[in-house]
C-alpha cells in the first residue's frame, strides 16, 4: 500500500498542472480539427479519414495524459555506442535511438520520478553492428541485464514494481528474444527480467513466444527525409500493377530454400516471374521509391522475420500493401484498421495471388487508396526529426497512455517478488 499511496500523494501538487494541460489539450483539438478541416476541404475528394474510434485514436494528443521519467544511464549504454558506430542512426532499428532523443525534449518528460507514470531506460541493445551493417544480438541480453541491474540498484522504482511500469524499446528481429534466427529466439524466449515490463517492439506475430501480452508494435525506422526527397507528382499515372524488390531466396543462409520466408517469397518468384503484371525482381534500382509511387499494389511478404520496412514505404507512397505473413501483428494495430487499408493474403494462397488481387472490387481498391492518401496515416508510420504531432513517437505515447492507470497488480506487495534474476542461459549472466 505504501508505495502506491506515495505515488498518489505526489500527484496532488500537479493536479492543477494536469487540469491546465487538459484545457490546453482541448484547445489543441479544435485547432487540429480546423487544420484538418482546411486539409479536408482541399483534399475533400481524394482522402478519407479513418472513421470511428480508430481514426480518433490516431489523432489523439498524448501530452498531458502521461508522464515519463528517463533514467540517466552512463553513456556506455547509449551515447558511446552511437559515437562508435554512427550507422546505428540510419538502419531500420534506429527507432530506439530516436525515441530516446524525442523523449528527452518532449513535453511528457518529467524530472520528478515520483509523479511519473512510466519509466524509460535508454539502452541501445541493437547498436552492435557487423562490418556489413547487420546487428549482432549476442551481447544484447547481457547489456539489457546490466542496465536493469544498474537502475534497480540506483533507484527504488524498479524493485517497487519489478518493472511493471517500465517500458523498453527493443526493435530487433525478434524483439526481446535477442536472436535473429527464429528457432534460437523461440528457444531463448523473452529475457526473464523483462517479463513484467512493457515492450515497444517491431516484431509482432500472434501466439508467438516473442510477443508478450500488452506489447506495443511499432513500424521499423524508415528515413523520412530520404523518402521525402523522392516524391513524384501525385498525378503520375499508377501503371505498375504489383511491385516488389527484394530477395526471393537467401542463398547465403538458406541454400536449399524453404526456410527463408517459410517458402512464401520463393513461391512468389516461381509462380509470377513470367507474369507481366508483376514487376518483381532482386535488383536494386535507383528509382525504387519512385516506382512504388507508380504502383497500385506493393508486396510486403515476410522475410526471416514477419515485419519489414516495405510496409512503411508502401503507406507513405500510397501503394496498397499486400501483406503475406500469417498471424502477423502490424504496427499500432489497435489504432490503425489495417484490414481496411491493406490486403492480407495467407502464405498458402500465394500461388493464387493474381486471382485474389484482380478480383478485389474496384470500389474497395479506390477506398483503400483514399485511406492511404490521408496524411495522418503516413504521419503515424514515420519517425521524423524533430518530432511532429501525430507521428510514430506520439502514437507510441498514445499506446502507453491507453494502458494507464496501472492496475493494482503492477505494484508489488511487501515481500512479493516475481523476477528470477538467475534465470536464462548461463552466458547471459556474465557482466557486460
Amino acid at each position, binding site marked *: 500500500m505504501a508505495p502506491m499511496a506515495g505515488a498518489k500523494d505526489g500527484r496532488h501538487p500537479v493536479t492543477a498542472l494536469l487540469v491546465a494541460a487538459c484545457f490546453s489539450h482541448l484547445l489543441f483539438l479544435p485547432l487540429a480539427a480546423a487544420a484538418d478541416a482546411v486539409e479536408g476541404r482541399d*483534399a475533400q*475528394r*481524394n482522402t478519407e479519414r479513418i472513421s470511428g474510434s480508430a481514426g480518433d485514436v490516431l489523432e489523439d494528443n498524448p501530452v498531458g495524459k502521461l508522464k515519463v521519467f528517463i533514467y540517466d544511464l552512463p553513456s556506455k549504454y547509449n551515447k558511446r555506442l552511437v559515437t562508435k558506430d554512427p550507422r546505428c542512426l540510419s538502419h531500420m532499428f534506429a527507432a530506439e535511438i530516436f525515441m530516446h532523443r524525442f523523449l528527452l525534449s518532449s513535453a511528457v518528460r518529467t524530472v520528478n520520478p515520483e509523479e511519473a507514470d512510466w519509466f524509460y531506460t535508454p539502452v541501445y541493445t541493437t547498436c552492435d553492428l557487423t562490418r556489413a551493417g547487420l546487428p549482432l544480438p549476442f551481447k544484447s541480453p547481457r547489456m539489457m541485464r546490466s542496465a536493469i541491474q544498474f537502475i534497480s540498484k540506483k533507484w527504488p522504482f524498479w524493485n517497487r514494481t519489478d518493472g511493471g511500469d517500465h517500458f523498453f524499446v527493443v526493435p530487433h528481429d525478434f524483439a526481446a528474444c535477442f536472436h535473429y534466427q*527464429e*528457432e534460437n529466439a*523461440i528457444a531463448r*524466449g523473452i529475457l526473464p527480467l523483462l517479463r513484467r515490463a512493457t515492450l515497444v517492439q517491431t516484431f509482432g*506475430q*500472434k*501466439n*508467438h*513466444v516473442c510477443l508478450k501480452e500488452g506489447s506495443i508494435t511499432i513500424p521499423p525506422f524508415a528515413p523520412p527525409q530520404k523518402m521525402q526527397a523522392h516524391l513524384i*507528382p*501525385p*498525378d503520375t*499515372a*499508377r*501503371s505498375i*500493377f504489383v511491385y516488389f524488390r527484394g530477395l526471393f*531466396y537467401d*542463398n547465403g*543462409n*538458406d*541454400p*536449399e*530454400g*524453404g*526456410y527463408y520466408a*517459410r*517458402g*512464401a517469397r*520463393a*513461391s512468389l518468384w*516461381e*509462380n*509470377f*516471374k*513470367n*507474369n*507481366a*503484371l508483376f514487376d518483381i525482381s532482386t535488383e536494386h534500382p535507383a528509382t525504387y521509391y519512385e516506382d512504388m509511387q507508380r504502383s*497500385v499494389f506493393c508486396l510486403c511478404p515476410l522475410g526471416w522475420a514477419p515485419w519489414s520496412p516495405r510496409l512503411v514505404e508502401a503507406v507513405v507512397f500510397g501503394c496498397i500493401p499486400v501483406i503475406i505473413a*500469417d*498471424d502477423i501483428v502490424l504496427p499500432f494495430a489497435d489504432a490503425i484498421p489495417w484490414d481496411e487499408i491493406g490486403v492480407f493474403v495467407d*502464405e*498458402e494462397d*500465394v*500461388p*493464387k495471388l*493474381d*486471382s485474389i*488481387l*484482380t*478480383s*478485389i472490387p*474496384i470500389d474497395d*481498391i*479506390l477506398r483503400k*487508396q483514399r485511406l492511404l*492518401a490521408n496524411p495522418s496515416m503516413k504521419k503515424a508510420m514515420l519517425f521524423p526529426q524533430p518530432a511532429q504531432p501525430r507521428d510514430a513517437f506520439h502514437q507510441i505515447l498514445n499506446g502507453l497512455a491507453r494502458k494507464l492507470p496501472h492496475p493494482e497488480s503492477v505494484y508489488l506487495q511487501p515481500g512479493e517478488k516475481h523476477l528470477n534474476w538467475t534465470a536464462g542461459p548461463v552466458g547471459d549472466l556474465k557482466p557486460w
Partner: protein
Amino acid sequence: MMKSLLPQSQLRRSAAASSAARSSVGGAEGPAAASDSSAGGTKPTSSSTFWFLLHALCCLISLFLGFRFSRLLFFLLFSSSALYAASNTNNPSSASSASHVVVGRHGIRIRPWPHPDPVEVMRAHRIMDRVQEEQRRWYGVREPRHVLAVTPTYSRAFQALHLTGLLHSLRNVPYPLTWLVVEAGGVTNATAALLARSGLTVVHVPFPDRMPLDWAERHATENRMRLHALRVIRERKMDGVVVFADDSNVHSMELFDEAQKVQWMAAVSVGILAHTGAAEQPRLTEDDRKSMPLPVQGPACNASGQLAGWHTFNTLPFSGKTAAVVGEAAPVLPRGLEWAGFIINSRMLWKEAEGKPEWVKDLDAVGENGEEIENPLTLLNDASFVEPLGNCGKKILLWWLRVEARADSKFPAGWVIEPPLEVVIPAKRTPWPETTTEVSSEQLEGKQEQEDRRLSRTNRSARSRSTTTKRKGDVQN
C-alpha cells in the same frame, strides 16, 4: 538431437545444388524433413534408429549421386503427394500450442500452370484504368479550359503535309479545342476539305492578301494573319487559352497541359530547328560547337523562378547563308521572338474583361497604323509580367521548323489525281509470254487493257502507245 542438428548442418552446406532443381523438389523437402526430424522425442527408439539408418543411406547416396538426387530418389520412393503440391507440416518446434504457423522448412508452393490468365490480365488493366481515372480526377486539372489554336496557312505543296500532322496533334489534345485557321488568299476548297475531314471544331477565316514568296515578307504577313485571328476571337468573345500552332511546327502534349495554367500571358521554351537542307553547312569547330548557345527560344529565369529575360536563337553562324525565298535550299531562321512560344488568355484580348491587368494594351491599339507586330510582347505595355511555364522554361514543349517546297512545284489539287495518270513506263511483267518486238496494235491494246485493270481501281487510264487508236479521257469511276 536430430531435429536441432539438421537445420544447422544444412545451413553450413555450401550452395552446391542448382536453384533450378530447387523448386521442383521443394515439395520433396517437406516430407523428407518431416520424416527426418520428427524422430526427436516422441517416437519410440526403434523407429528413430530406422530413420537414422535411412538418413545415413541418403547421405551415402548423395555422396555418389549428389544431394539433389538423393532427395529426389527418396521422394519418389516414399511420397505419394503430387510433385507440385505443398506439404508444409514440419517439425513441431514452435513452442506455442495455439499457433498453426510453424518454424522450419516449408514447401515452395507452385501451381501447375504458373502463367497469367488472360481474363485476369484484362481485369487488372481495367483496375489500373479506373485508378488512373481517379488520379486524374483528384490531382489533375479541375476545370479544363478551352484551347484556341491559331494557325496561319496558305495553299501550297507542303500544306497538306503540315496540316495533316498538326490536325493529328490537335485531335489528341484532351481538352475542348477550337481551331482557328487563317488562310492567305481567301478560303480554298482544298483547305476546306482537309479541315472538314479533321473532325475538329474549325473556324476557317479568310485573309485577303496572298502569301508572298520572300521569307521576310511572309513572316510579316503571318503576323498580320495572327492578329486578324486575335481580332476574330475578340469579336466573338471566345473564351479559353490561345496557342499559336503554326502549321509546320510540332507540338508535344505537355504544351497543352501547361497551357491550362496560364493566367494572362505565358512563355514556353521552343526548340528551333533551322533546317539545313543544303550540302553546304556552316563548318563549326569544336570550340564553336561548345560555345554555341542552344537552339532554343524561351524565357530565362533567375534563381527564385522569376522571369529574368529571354533566350533567343543565335543567328550569327548562319549569317549570309539563309534562305531568302520560300523553297530555297538553305536554312530558314526565326526572326526575333516567335509567336509559337507564347500562350495568351483570350480574355486579355476582350474589350471588357474582369481582372484584365493594366499592363495589357487594348487590341485595337495594336497594328492599326500598319506597324510591324513582331511578337506578342507588343501586345503588352510591360513585358515583365509574362509567366514562364514548362518548369520555368526548362522543358521544351514544341519545335519550330520551316520546310517548304519551291513555290512553283506542282502538286495535284486537293491531292486527288485528276486527270488520270499517264502511263509513263509500261509494266514489264505481263501474263502473256514474251513476244517478238513486232507486235500488232490489237495485241498491244489488249495488253494495255490488262495493265489498266491492274493499275488502278477507280481511275482507269486508257491512253495507249499505239498511234492508230486514241482513247483519251476514258474515265470510269
